[in-house]
């Protein structure tokens, strides 16, 4: 397939499926994670990839940007990165005789914030604020970010030296948190035998565009959610607040995030309505990083325990 193949302007849903297949062809053996990443984009949320280096975090972000046809920027977070470095600064230009704003990498459609935990808390909070507000204020002037502005942040949870872990309160700015994990044997063999990912990425044709993304987001928001699904969702929220091992349960914002993600998941499945299955599929990714364990339990195990404990009424 060549990069300038004519793109049909019709219904984006079939192309969405094609796009899913295309990203899966690059990020091998992680169909669930890829689908969740798609759901995150469709729900209009930001994605936190938490994993050791080298498992394909960057590849996934690149593949997503390419396939979705989104303007892409990458920022490597380091301790000496300043807020201005990502937002932009006004530079004095002699010819014009005044300051001109040089927008930073933030003004893009898809931003890859690599190793976000290496940035100082100041930079982190500048980014997270932009994510929450969907705009930035520089020197009293408010500049809107692109309509589809999405952040994919990565961090390495094990490398703690010289890092600033994202505070719990900031974590829930991310709609989902995913870990890719090692590929299975088969996928790893395919990876080793196949072409270099970098080459593959370069050749990926954009199948969708920003307008498609906005359309699909609108469509996801309009999906039917029946009261029994809301009941189930509420039961999950309440159980998280009541769980003996959880210090702080899921907030109402987490409930909204869960609903949006479940809607996106249902849209990916081509359904016009949400089922409890959709809620379950996205629950760990949406909820785990928002749970605060009381003791040494991991967040993922808590999310799994909640899912197993809360019954679905027929």
């Amino acid at each position: 397939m060549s990069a300038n193949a004519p793109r049909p302007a019709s219904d984006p849903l079939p192309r969405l499926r094609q796009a899913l297949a295309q990203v899966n062809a690059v990020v091998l053996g992680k169909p669930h994670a890829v689908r969740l990443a798609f759901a995150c984009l469709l729900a209009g949320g930001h994605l936190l990839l938490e994993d050791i280096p080298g498992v394909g975090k960057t590849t996934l972000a690149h593949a997503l940007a390419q396939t979705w046809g989104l303007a892409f920027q990458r920022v490597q977070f380091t301790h000496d990165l300043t807020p201005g470095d990502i937002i932009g600064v006004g530079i004095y230009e002699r010819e014009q005789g005044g300051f001109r704003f040089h927008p930073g990498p933030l003004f893009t459609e898809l931003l890859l914030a690599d190793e976000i935990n290496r940035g100082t808390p100041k930079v982190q909070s500048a980014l997270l604020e932009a994510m929450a507000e969907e705009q930035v204020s520089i020197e009293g002037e408010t500049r809107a970010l692109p309509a589809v502005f999405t952040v994919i942040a990565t961090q390495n949870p094990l490398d703690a030296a010289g890092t600033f872990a994202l505070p719990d309160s900031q974590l829930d700015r991310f709609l989902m948190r995913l870990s890719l994990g090692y590929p299975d044997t088969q996928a790893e063999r395919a990876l080793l035998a196949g072409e270099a990912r970098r080459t593959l990425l370069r050749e990926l044709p954009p199948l969708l565009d920003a307008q498609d993304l906005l359309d699909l987001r609108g469509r996801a928001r309009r999906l039917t959610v029946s009261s029994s699904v809301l009941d189930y969702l509420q039961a999950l929220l309440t159980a998280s607040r009541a769980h003996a091992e959880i210090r702080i349960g899921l907030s109402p914002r987490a409930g909204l995030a869960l609903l949006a993600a479940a809607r996106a998941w249902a849209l990916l499945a081509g359904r016009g309505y949400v089922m409890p299955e959709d809620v379950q599929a996205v629950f760990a990714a949406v909820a785990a990083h928002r749970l605060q364990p009381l003791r040494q339990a991991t967040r993922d195990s808590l999310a799994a325990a909640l899912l197993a404990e809360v019954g679905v009424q027929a």
Partner: protein
Amino acid sequence: MNAAAQRPDLRSFALLSLTAAAVLVLHAGHLPLWLPPPLLLLLAWRWQGYRRGLRFPAALRYLLVLALPLAVVASYGTLFGRLPGAALAVGLLVLKLTETERLRDARIAVAVAAFVLMSALLFGQSLLMTVLVCATLWPALATLAALQPGSGGTAALLRESALRLALALPVALLAFVLVPRLSTPLWGAPGAGEARTGISARMSPGAIAQLLIDDSPAFRVGFDGAIPPRAQRYFRAVVLWHFDGRSWTPGHAALPLEPLAARRPPLRYTISLEATRQTLLPALDIPLRAAAGTRFTAARTLLAAHPVDQRLRYTLESATGYALDPRLSPAERALALQLPAGADPRTRALAARWRRQTGGAGAAIIAAALRLFHDGGFRYTLVPPPLGHQQVDDFLFDTRAGFCEHYASAFVFLMRAAGLPARVVAGYQGGYANRLAGYVLVRQSDAHAWAEVWLRGRGWVRVDPTAAVRPERISLGATAAAQGAGAPWYLSGWWLGLRDRIDIVNRLWDQAVVGFDALRQRGLLTRFGVDPARWQSLALALALLLGALMAVAMALTLHEPRARVDALARAYAVLERRLARHGYRRSGSEPPAQFLQRVATTLPPQPARRLYELSTGYARLRYACTPSAPALAVRDWIRRAREFRL
């Protein structure tokens, strides 16, 4: 801080004020005019203050607490009695609200309100009043609920209280029927100050009409022998000689006792008279002798020595076939022919014509008058049109509508004008014969007026002109006669019809509730094998029935529906159980549709396909349809689920 010491919230105080205002309004009808407006103003002021969190000035409150009894005394001359008591109670209720600062006070205020509310019924037991008073329990109970910590919204409170009242109604009615009635009051006399009237010694227009709608018992008669037939049960209470053109009165002349000759063996009976606050004692026809403590009037009606304040029993022997006063003295004749000068010329003319036509024969004149009443287009009604100055003329020639009082009055006038000595007798007629208990209950509504005409050789002869117009009045009673009376209601206009209907409802109310006394209780309960004479058996019945009701309520309470389950969920549960019998079990957290798909993957193609269809169908019905799935599709799914076999 003690919970009871908290300040009631604004909402409960609003409900409390509403309750107090309602109590005040219900009492307003009989309070002196100067009292309700200041109390309402005080209430409004207090409400404004409470809203702003202010306390009522204590000094002012003490002043008002002192001033209230003084004002009541100034108005009534006393603090005691029904009216001053009510004024005082209503005033104190409002003053209680001015000091309500704690939950405890508010609760007490509600209790006080309930009591004052009940006292409103001492002034009238009409259906409307009773309904209004019972309805005021609603805000009162809502106030109590609002004072509970953790109570819901105001709408929920009102709903809860209304529901509780509605649920309590059957129990209340049962208790009402079964509570043993007192045969004699424990204290005091009912209605001090205001005569519990019966027949009075003065018959003015409409006097009896008031009695006719009063269903309370007048007296009861126990006969030693058989109960005489209804048409013969005329109880004379007072003989009225003097007519002033409007009212009949006994007259003042001192006459000798009229001699009596009994023609049939006398009847022996005992009358148990309710308190009347009068001295008139009704007796059947003509008693032979006055009972102990009573005396005869000249016309052989009985008078008590003192006004009857308590139930009075007296035993008499009466003649029902008799010759009374066969020789009329001139003084009596003069009294029995008295007519107000110049009144009712047309009636006099008519009587004069009769006299000429009959040659003064008594029986013929009586027959002519009765024929006039029977064929002259007269009708019997309890709501007669008003009469002008020439009362008898107006009645006989214009309105031709009225009840016993009008007929008796006009008849006696006619007789006198025709030269026959005649007099009006007021008393009671008929009564309700309780065959089971062997006595006759005579109610105030059985009050009646008729005539006695003196015929040569026969003495005073009873003539009941009302019977000529409406014989049912004598055979059935006033109510029955009135209901069948006159033109159809629609001819009299919608208003009259409405009034009749309201009247019927009120009458039913009076009979069923207000008049439900020990006697009626006995009549009702003996049919169910309860002996109401012994209050123990009543109490036992009450306790048993209430216990049974409580048990039913308890059982309903204990039956706790687990969850709301709709038809789809029920059908799914059945399917789930069927699959479980084949070893397919759904964990609680497995979504229902996913479970069916999981089972389908293990099945042979045919059932797998059908189960898969059930799964997608279920998902569509359950999750795709808001707010609810179409009934037809649900039924179809249920049918397919029922037909599914592994």
